């Protein structure tokens, strides 16, 4: 069956990319893998015609976002146990930066985090981010603004990009002073 073949091809050839995308949303690998599999099953759990791996991947990515933002047991489960996990004592420098970013991303709400991943990992314009999240552009701008401010409190000033058009608003509430220069 064509759908089964597309699923198999997609999981085999694009599984790593999809997992990386989900990993940035969830913050832990097992949950990311669960999320990708759930999305694959949901997309391919109905017969569709004319599916190619490319179009299917777009469906799967959108479904990953939907499943993530809808809020899930995996996220609750992760939050329930993550404080039990032990961090490496002396991580290498690049790993340390990854951990910093992971910790910073963990401070974001699901909507804020999804906005950041779609904007800064998928490189989507805000209008497209809003479309993927089924939200108004203004709402996404607010999420992005809040997210960037929270990230700055952990990571320091963020490098400005020409295509960045998100105005950083005061955090709510301001738990730490912004250090944007």
């Amino acid at each position, binding site marked *: 069956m064509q759908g089964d073949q597309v699923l198999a091809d997609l999981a085999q050839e694009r599984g790593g990319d999809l997992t990386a995308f989900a990993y*940035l949303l969830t913050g832990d690998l097992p949950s990311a893998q669960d999320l990708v599999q759930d999305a694959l099953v949901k997309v391919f759990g109905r017969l569709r015609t004319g599916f190619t791996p490319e179009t299917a991947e777009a469906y799967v990515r959108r479904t990953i976002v939907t499943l993530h933002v809808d809020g899930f*047991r995996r996220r609750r489960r992760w939050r329930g146990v993550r404080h039990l996990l032990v961090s490496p004592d002396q991580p290498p420098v690049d790993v340390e930066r990854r951990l910093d970013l992971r910790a910073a991303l963990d401070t974001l709400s699901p909507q804020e985090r999804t906005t950041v991943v779609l904007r800064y990992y998928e490189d989507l314009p805000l209008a497209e981010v809003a479309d993927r999240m089924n939200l108004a552009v203004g709402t996404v701008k607010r999420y992005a603004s809040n997210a960037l401010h929270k990230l700055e409190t952990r990571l320091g000033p963020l*490098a400005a990009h020409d295509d960045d058009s998100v105005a950083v608003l005061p955090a709510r509430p301001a738990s730490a002073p912004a250090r944007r220069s």
Partner: protein
Amino acid sequence: MDYDLHRGMRDLGSDPEVRATRFPIEQLLRRAHRRRAARATALGAVGATTVAALTFGGIALIGDLHPDPAPPVVVPTQSATSEPDPTPTSAPEPTESPFEPDLSACGTTRGPTMYDYDTDLTMADVGAPSSEPGEDVHTVVTFGTSQQWAGDRVSVAPLEAVLTNAADLSTSAESTVIAVPAAPLRAPSAQVLIDGTMGAPGASAPLAMDIPFVMCPGTPDAGSSPPAGSYTLWFEGRMVHDGTPLTNRGAWLVTVGAPPEQPSVGEDLGLPPQLDIPAEQYRLDLDRCGSSTAQLDAIAGANPVITGGTHYVAETSTWYRALPSGQATLWFRTEAGWWADTDSWPGPESSEITVLDAVVAPATPGDHAIWGTGPMLSSGPVAGLLAGPVTPFAWNGPLSMDLPITWCDGSTTVPDGVWALYVKVQQNVSGTGVAPWSSTGIFWVAQVLAVGPDAYPGTWPY
């Protein structure tokens, strides 16, 4: 130096451990197929129910087969500013006593005599995909009522669920419980009853459940989940309507793992493996494929022998489900109907109905079902055959059963379209009204089955 968020995100997403993920494709395909099967069940139900409802002048729709979302998991949140409480008594921990399976049910028996507590509540399985060994057992239960309660809010709750070996529900034989739930049965939230119940007037609330089971002590797999095979699920549920609790039981087949393959005579034709029901050997008369329904046998159209001045016939409505094995199984519901000269007479005192045969043929608009008399439907060639034995039953009320149908062209699902299902019924029904009466005979009952949404092209031809 300013933090480059683009670069940081890409770096985080390039973690080799993350990208090395390899997914279990076979397992994903199985999950996707199960999801498709569940959707097919729901969609097929829509088509079949619509036609059946038109027969009765109503509109019946099957509702959402998806279960309610699981109750939220309460995870104690930690407050960064909270101080450790020095007094243990003032810091109650949410404690849950671990669930202990109720093994006292093991070795007890269940039997058909345990059916039916409240006549206003029926309970039936509408088909669920088979479960994988080690997984929860899937089942879809319809809490139904013949009352016109559509739109009413009710609460439904599972009270008991146990497994026995696959049982012959047509006999009074008792079956021994071999598995009990390994976790508390989840009580779903309130449901809204929808029009129709299995093709008949009334209202219903379908409920999908996944139940973990543990095998009883003394069984070969004691302490484990049920191994691959067929089991009978004995289910007791309660529906509370307007403050009144209604309780009933039902029993139906559930399958763990792939259904057992049978040495099928249809293998040469590429027919799907048989059967879903506990099978005795059953010979498929494939020569009948393509023959006219008018030539089924000489009994077609024969009148039942009726004495005592009243009629009593079996009415049928149909359903279907597509099993994960690829076998298309029609769901056939026989309902003993009171066809008396006056409705003041009591119902039958005994009834025994045996399904002897069944075939499926294409139906066309204008065909109509005839109960017991007249010619067969002027439909086309036989396209599907009864593929397994159907045991007789004795019952004065609604009872549903599976009719496994093998499609002559090897189809693995019920094709969309309008089909006529012919069922050869032997009945022996008797009662006492103004005078003792009986109705005996062998005859064909025909019923139109619409498969797929919008399958039926127009108004019912009655």
